[in-house]
């Protein structure tokens, strides 16, 4: 065996470990830099380590021969995403949690002392408990509504759309080429107190019914909980509809025929065949709708009133207006953990192996 082969074999034997190790080291470096954990001359040291790490693996790959390259390739492909997450996800989350446990040096200072200040969390719960509740309640209602509206719509497009399928899907998506903000503000015009919707409702006498249903409040449609939930429902509908459509579209029409052939009425065929096969779509749609809706602040801002603020509004307020980063961070951390917990529970209960 030549020296080259011996060297290549040695590198190949260790390539797996080296690749993984180098990726972890590089990620730690980026988190350290991103969170400003290190300062002064240490920064140069970390940057040097990072460069050596990145270049080192390349050199190893160049000198290691095909087997080493084959083993290193997966880490090479993972690295960009991993480093991106380290810098733009892990580092901010670290900072967020750190600030949430800090106190301001003084009332107007922008500097924080890390001192395990758990009172931030107490304050987040005690002062903003109702905003948390409201956020999850509104998001949950909006999610249910998107299912109730989106499922039949997706069903019709998938099974009865024929050659108009793409046009119909386009009609669902086209409004979303406009900015989220503009669309939400447009709703405030549509639902305005002297707008045509309210006037039309009152003209046909539906006002009282809506009042009774707590959809309208003192003749107003705008600035009610219903308006906020409606806005959320409207804005997140495509995120529910599209996954459901995809899972319905995949269903072979012969399965429905087969159910009919096996003595099932249309209702039973739907219940036993179509619905179970489309559950992965509903599941994916629920995640795509509930998670952003729970953290949303735009709809409550433009369509709600001071009594409909959601946790997103409060976090934004604490961060940008009150300049109270520690409490705002604590609230954001709580929101993140709550959503993660709810999603995990949901996955446990309804989860499907083939989440498509």
């Amino acid at each position: 065996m030549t020296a080259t082969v011996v060297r290549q074999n040695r590198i190949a034997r260790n390539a797996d470990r080296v690749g993984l190790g180098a990726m972890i080291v590089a990620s730690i470096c980026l988190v350290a830099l991103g969170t400003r954990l290190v300062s002064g001359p240490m920064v140069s040291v970390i940057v040097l380590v990072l460069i050596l790490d990145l270049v080192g693996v390349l050199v190893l790959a160049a000198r290691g021969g095909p087997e080493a390259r084959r083993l290193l390739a997966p880490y090479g492909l993972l690295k960009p995403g991993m480093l991106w997450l380290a810098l733009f996800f892990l580092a901010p989350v670290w900072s967020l949690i750190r600030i949430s446990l800090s106190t301001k040096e003084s009332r107007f200072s922008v500097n924080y002392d890390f001192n395990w200040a758990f009172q931030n969390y107490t304050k987040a719960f005690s002062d903003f408990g109702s905003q948390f509740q409201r956020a999850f309640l509104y998001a949950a209602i909006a999610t249910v509504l998107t299912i109730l509206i989106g499922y039949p719509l997706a069903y019709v497009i998938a099974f009865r759309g024929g050659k108009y399928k793409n046009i119909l899907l386009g009609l669902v998506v086209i409004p979303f080429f406009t900015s989220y903000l503009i669309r939400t503000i447009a709703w405030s015009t549509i639902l305005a107190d002297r707008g045509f919707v309210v006037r039309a409702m009152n003209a046909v006498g539906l006002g009282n019914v809506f009042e009774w249903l707590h959809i309208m409040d003192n003749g107003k449609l705008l600035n009610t909980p219903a308006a906020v939930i409606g806005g959320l429902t409207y804005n997140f509908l495509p995120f529910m509809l599209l996954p459901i459509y995809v899972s319905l579209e995949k269903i072979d029409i012969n399965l429905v025929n087969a159910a009919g052939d096996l003595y099932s009425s249309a209702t039973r065929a739907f219940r036993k065949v179509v619905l179970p096969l489309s559950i992965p779509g509903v599941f994916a749609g629920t995640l795509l709708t509930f998670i952003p809706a729970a953290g949303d602040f735009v709809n409550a801002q433009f369509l709600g009133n001071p009594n409909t603020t959601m946790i997103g509004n409060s976090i934004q307020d604490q961060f940008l207006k009150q300049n109270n980063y520690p409490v705002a961070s604590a609230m954001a951390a709580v929101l993140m953990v709550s959503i993660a917990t709810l999603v995990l529970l949901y996955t446990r209960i309804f989860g499907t192996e083939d989440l498509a």
Partner: protein
Amino acid sequence: MGESVSDVIVLDHVSKRYGDFVAVHDANFSIATGEFFAMLGPSGCGKTTTLKMIAGFEQPTAGRVMLDGIDVSDVPPYKRNVNTVFQQYALFPHMSVFDNVAFGPRSKKVDESKIKTSVMEMLEIVRLNDFAQRKPSQLSGGQQQRVALARALVNYPSALLLDEPLAALDLKLREAMQIELKRIQREVGISFIFVTHDQGEALTMSDRIAVMSQGHVEQIGTPQEIYRSPASLFVAGFIGSANLLPGTVQSHDGADAVVALKAGSAIRVAGQASAHAIGAHVSVMLRPERLRPSEQADANGQSLQGTLTDLVFQGATARMIVRLADGTELTCLADSSARMPQIAVGATMNVSWGADCGYILAGWPEKAGSNTTDIDHIESTL
């Protein structure tokens, strides 16, 4: 049409049109209980549409579909006592094999304990009892096919409809499943009506075959009848291969007809004088396996001379292509174990046959000489 009590399905002058297009024209036949019945034809001949009308997925535009003596033309599929095995099986992917098979009985609200017995019984018949808890995706194509069969048969339908049941399987498996299907059918005694474009499949399995072309039923009969005495030139060319020689009826000699072939000679065809008048334009069908290759011409004139253009050894048989003087090509399938004349490709040779080997069909073929159904061609047009 002779409707007997034992007929499970009767198609009474059934037609189906889509706008101007006639998919099925005046289908009028019946299928007996316990019969293995094939509907055979090239794609677009209306066989699948006919099957769908029996299943209830399509409604006839004219005529009646009778099931067990009752008109079911307007009855939806889920109320008809027939079951279908779909071409791609259409097994429910989210259910186990057991639940798939139990689907029909559960729809009918049969007692769950009875369902368990009957499902396991049926899985036993299709030899899948060890696979009851598997998902369809964990089974091979042949096993999925058998689940589809069990799922349909567990309901003990009056008739089982199979839409190209073997098309999705590879050749070896297809041959095994042909025997398996036949065994299962005998075991359960239910009428099987199956649609195929594969004449070999139809000949192997069926008790009777309906040959269809362009929406018309060309002929209904046992495989032997259809092979030996096809009703039309289309059937002759579609079932097996046939050498079709155009000619004119020259004279009648007792029961025999003498036909003057366009290719030159006048030949004798036994026992068919009554069906074809003198002077009629006819074709003489000669099956390749009935032709004998020889160096000498036949003493009775029952032979044609040509050039051997191709010789393919196929194991038990040898296929010879013989080109006649007018360019017509004949196929001759010779028993390769018999003493074959030593003829080289390019040499002149004779093919001869007995007077009882020919069969006279009305009309002249589009293409004289050898007509073979090219299965590959049909499959590629599906």
